[in-house]
Every structure is written in structure tokens, then in C-alpha cells.
């Protein structure tokens, strides 16, 4: 359990660092990926709603502490994204590698739009509707492009940290 918490922390911190450094220079039409959304969605797909919500809350709080917006909006968004994706994973019947990519794209887009609406309701969203739509679409597309690279990595780490049942004869 402790090992898993440490690994999730490591993944979240790495995503946060990469998003604020490397990916701030590798933008897609001026928009960077939302790596913490991607991490949350992948954990939710692999671990279910409980794990999705917990990882989402932790990742969201980590991002909120780096922002100059009211803290808690990203945590709220990612908790709900993680929970929804975790609950919906039972509906996925195909084993196609495209499925995680599409789930990531759809969930990232919905999550970013939810964040924008929440920030707008709190009076802290300064973008125009067109800019907001562009950011939601492009960050979702960028996340989808990164999924085939990051999904196997996160899955490997996530599955490697699960405590295995010991069978003694």
C-alpha cells in the first residue's frame, strides 16, 4: 500500500514537473497537454472509481497548489473525472488499444470544460468562449496523442505496485 502511494506520488510529481517545463515548450497550437488529467484517467481505467477519485483528488490538489486560481477547482474536477471514468470502465467491452485513447480524449475534454464552467461560475475564468473551446479540444487531442506512450508506462507501474497474494502450500 505504502509502495503504491509512493509510486502514485512519484508519477503525479513527474507529470507536474514535465507539464510546467518540457511540455510548456512543446505546445500544440499554443496549448499544452493536461498530464494530470491523463494520469487520473489512466488510474481510473486500471483501478476503478475509488482509485480514480483518490488519485484525481491528489493530482488536482497538487496542480492547484501551483496555480494562481482558487485552490480546489482542479481537485474537484479530477475527483469527478476519476470517479466517472472508473464507474464507466465496466461499459468497455473492446480490448482495442484505441479504447483508452478515445476514453482519455473524451474524459479530458469533458474535464477541461467542467473546470472552465466551474472557474466561470466562481468569476475566475478570463478566457473567451472560443479560447476556452480551443483549449479544451486541443488539450484533449494532445492527451490522446500521448496516451499510447504513457498508458503502458503508467499501467506497468500501477500493476507492478499491487501487492500480490501469497499462496503457501
Amino acid at each position, binding site marked *: 500500500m505504502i509502495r503504491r502511494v509512493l509510486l502514485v506520488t512519484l508519477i503525479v510529481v513527474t507529470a507536474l514537473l514535465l507539464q510546467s*517545463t518540457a511540455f510548456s515548450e512543446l505546445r500544440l497550437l499554443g496549448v499544452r497537454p493536461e498530464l494530470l488529467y491523463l494520469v487520473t484517467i489512466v488510474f481510473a481505467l486500471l483501478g476503478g*472509481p475509488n482509485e480514480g*477519485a483518490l488519485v484525481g483528488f491528489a493530482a488536482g490538489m497538487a*496542480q492547484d497548489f*501551483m496555480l*494562481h486560481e482558487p485552490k480546489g477547482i482542479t481537485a474537484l474536477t479530477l475527483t469527478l473525472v476519476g470517479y466517472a471514468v472508473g464507474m464507466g470502465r465496466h461499459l468497455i467491452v473492446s480490448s482495442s488499444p484505441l479504447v483508452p485513447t478515445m476514453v482519455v480524449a473524451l474524459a479530458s475534454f469533458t474535464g477541461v470544460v467542467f473546470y472552465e464552467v466551474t472557474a466561470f461560475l466562481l468569476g475566475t475564468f*478570463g*478566457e473567451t468562449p472560443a479560447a476556452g473551446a480551443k483549449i479544451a479540444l486541443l488539450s484533449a487531442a494532445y492527451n490522446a496523442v500521448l496516451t499510447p506512450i504513457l498508458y503502458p508506462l503508467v499501467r506497468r507501474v500501477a500493476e507492478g505496485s499491487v501487492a500480490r497474494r501469497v499462496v503457501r502450500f
Partner: protein
Amino acid sequence: MAVPRGRPRSARFLVAGLVSCSLLIITLDYRQGPDGPLARAGDAVHTALAPMQQAVTSVTRPVGNFFSGLANLPSLAEENRSLKEQVAQLLTERALVEELQRDLDELYDIVGLRQTLDPAGVPAVVIANGVSNFDRVITIDKGEADGVGVDMAVVTGSSGSARLVGRVVSVTANAADVELIIDRDASVAGVIDSTREVGLLTGQGEEDLRMDLITRPLDLTGTPPQVFTVAYEVGGQQGRYPPHLLIGEVARVFEDDNQLQTSVSVRPVVDFSSLTFVLVLITPAPDEPAAGEPAA
């Protein structure tokens, strides 16, 4: 088939708890503002992550520049395999040399700028570029320990033309966050050099800045008019930025016959996507005497 009800119910309780926790945090942070415990926790996270951001940036910046360079060279696709390898190798070396040369030139500019500007400044390296698509903020590697404080102006450019980057919005012991002038929360008082008309510039995100309160017609034929920061004082409160810092060039005039005032769009002269070195202008706090002046 019986459906196990324990896990979904526990997930619902968990998510309800986490959502309540998030709403509580939003409310607390909203009420307490930048001086509350949550903001201080954010500062602590910034302090802890700044050295790591610095390390990651120093590794990834040349790689990122190399890939950006390759993206602009479609003719490479026509080369054969061995030439491609040679070209890629040469490009890597050239990109690194150009990067080093650019850094060197920029450092020379910053040193020259520091010698000519009053007040003096602290040179800083950009170690991170915000974390969200909605926040136009950069993180620099200088903090309170170097004399950097909130609301200090940050510039770049050469000794011939200091260009405004933004202002410090939060500072920790070893790093500081700088709100860029293109951020939608940023505003600067500026003056158009050709008409000497003063207006208020506001950030528009990825688009050009918008300058309001313009009353005189502007002629955009020929060299575009430039916009500089301007000193002002309202009710004993002085403006945030020192005067004569170049902000940008007027790109477009928004015509509206029904209004007495008009607006213009101002294209910033700073390329915010490739900032590496900046200079923080060390200005005393309003209740603090300037360097060399006796304390009251």
C-alpha cells in the same frame, strides 16, 4: 446474477467526501485570499518544486529546442538515410551551439540592461512556464533571498531597449512567479509614443494586448507606433511599473463611430514562449525608503 453492492456504495461515499473536501477548500481559499494557510501551503509546494523544475528545465530545454528546429525543416524528408543521420547530428550540434550563443547574447544584453536601468535589477533564469493553459505565469530561480518581492517589474531585452515581461505575483525563498502582461488578469498603464496618449492595456491571453481609453485618431501607415510604460500617481499610490519600458507596437485600431473613445490592439515585443533570462527590477516597497535614502 447478484451484483455486489459494497464497492459502488463505498465509491459513492468516497467521492462525496472528496467533493465536499474540494468545495470546502475552494470556499476557504476564496475567503482567505493570498494570505491564508492554503496559499502558504502553495508557497511551500513552490519552494520544494523549484529546484526540481530548474533541473528538469536544464535537461529538457535543449531537447525541446532541437525538436522545434526539426519541425521547421521539412526538406530533411527528401534526404537519404546517411545524409539524414549526418544532418540530424549536425543539426543537434548547431542547435546546441545556437542555443548557447543565444543564451550568451541574452546574458550580455541582461548585463548591459542591468547597468543602464535605474533601479538596478537581479538577473534570473526562467525555470518553468506555468502549469495550466489558463495561467500565463513563468517561474524564475530568484526569490526573497535575492531581494525579489511581490509587485516588482520584470523585464528583458538589451540596454538599448528594456522590454516589459510582467510583474512578480508570488515569491518564495528560492523562486518567484511572474504574471506575464498577456495574462487576462494583467493590466499596465501605457503611453503611445507618436501621440503621447495614455491608456490602459489589458492582457488577452494568446491574442494581442488591448489598449483602451484612446481618444485621438491613430495613423498606422508607416512604422507602427510603439507603446511604453508610463509613470503615474493616483491618490498617493504610484504605478507598478517604472516608465519607458517598451511594451509593444500598435497592430490594429478598433473603429467605432458611436463611441468617443476607441481601442487599439498592441502586439507585445517579447516572445513569451522562448524566455530564458529576465531581469527583476528591485524597487522598494511603498513604505520602505529607497536605497541611499535615510529611513524616516
